[in-house]
């Protein structure tokens, strides 16, 4: 079913909208959550919560495109769940992501205002647009979707080692890029 049709169903408060959303994006949402949480049951809950969150937010929102909107909700819910779980134990998938991101940012405390977050996101987007398409996909799949390096490498037709090297170089370049733009990371 097309995204527009799904959104229309949500706007019409038709319950089949949930089914249609799960059919189209349920697996992806669960995958995003699983990449962060590394727990099937938590991931399933996140998937269900995502559909509920979309139900509660559409309307008033009319997301277009629908995909990033749904994925962001799933990712944020997974990160919230991760933080909740993280209070008790360490070792989740986000730990690994945070560890790699350590190449880009320092561990020191810093301002985390909404404005700063938005500026950083914009700079990262600009940086990614300067990269080759495959490198961009590699970065986004790794650090946004949280996919395993081996899985991405397979999809891109490169070795996992090559993917890791590319990611490392991109992190280094991104750190330089952000510094040059006055973003203190």
């Amino acid at each position, binding site marked *: 079913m097309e995204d527009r049709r799904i959104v229309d169903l949500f706007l019409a408060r038709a319950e089949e909208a949930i089914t249609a959303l799960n059919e189209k994006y349920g697996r992806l949402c669960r995958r995003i959550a699983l990449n962060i949480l590394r727990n099937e049951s938590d991931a399933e809950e996140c998937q269900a919560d995502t559909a509920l969150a979309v139900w509660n937010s559409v309307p008033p929102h009319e997301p277009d495109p629908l995909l990033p909107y749904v994925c962001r909700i799933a990712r944020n819910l997974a*990160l919230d769940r991760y933080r909740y779980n993280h209070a008790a134990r360490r070792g989740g998938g986000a730990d690994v992501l945070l560890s790699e*991101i350590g190449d880009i940012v320092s561990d020191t405390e*810093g301002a*985390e205002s909404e404005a700063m*977050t938005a500026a950083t996101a914009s700079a*990262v987007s600009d940086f*990614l647009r300067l990269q080759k398409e495959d490198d961009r*996909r590699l970065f986004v799949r790794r650090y946004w979707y949280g996919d395993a390096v081996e899985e991405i490498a397979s999809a891109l*037709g490169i070795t996992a080692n090559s993917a890791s090297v590319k990611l490392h170089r991109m992190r280094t370049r991104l750190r330089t890029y952000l510094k040059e733009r006055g973003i203190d990371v």
Partner: protein
Amino acid sequence: MKREFFLKSIDGIDDDLLIEAFAENEQNKTIAKNGKIYWRWGVSVAACLLVGVSVWAAVPSVFMKASDNMAPEAAILPGDVHEEALFDAAVGIVPTDDADGDLKTEAASGNVSKNESFNEQSVFFIAKITEVNESSLLVEVTDKGSTALNKGTAAYVSTAFDAYVACAVGDNIRVEFDGFIQEVYPLIIPNVISISKNP
């Protein structure tokens, strides 16, 4: 913590970047199967098959000569000669000589009649001279004689032997040789025994 801040910042990257990566996500298996990985696989397999078929197509003529005229156990070539034949066949060269003189091959395409005796001293064909060179004649086969050469086939015939009597362009000649033919274009017949004018 700044790392989490950064993770949060990444969340705000533009939608089109997410869609682009998602498209890859959804299609990754298809791309992997139809795209780079299997494409490379396919090329490798095709290359191996090509080499295999080339060897298979060329080697039988090597064995055919031996097996047609020798005892079955003798048809198995000595290791060195065999490997050499395989190598030559793979690179498109037909052996023209061998270590012990037992292996006498002609063109890999089967230019020798199966009825010919492998141990026969010589074979012959009739040809018309089209070019005279210092140590060879370029000829056009007009009668295959005891060979399997096709009529009209061009071949260089060596004249580097003692009994050679000078010929001229347009002469019809009978070429007797030991059966070796180098399969290049034109063919080369290096070991000529005699050349005589054919009326």
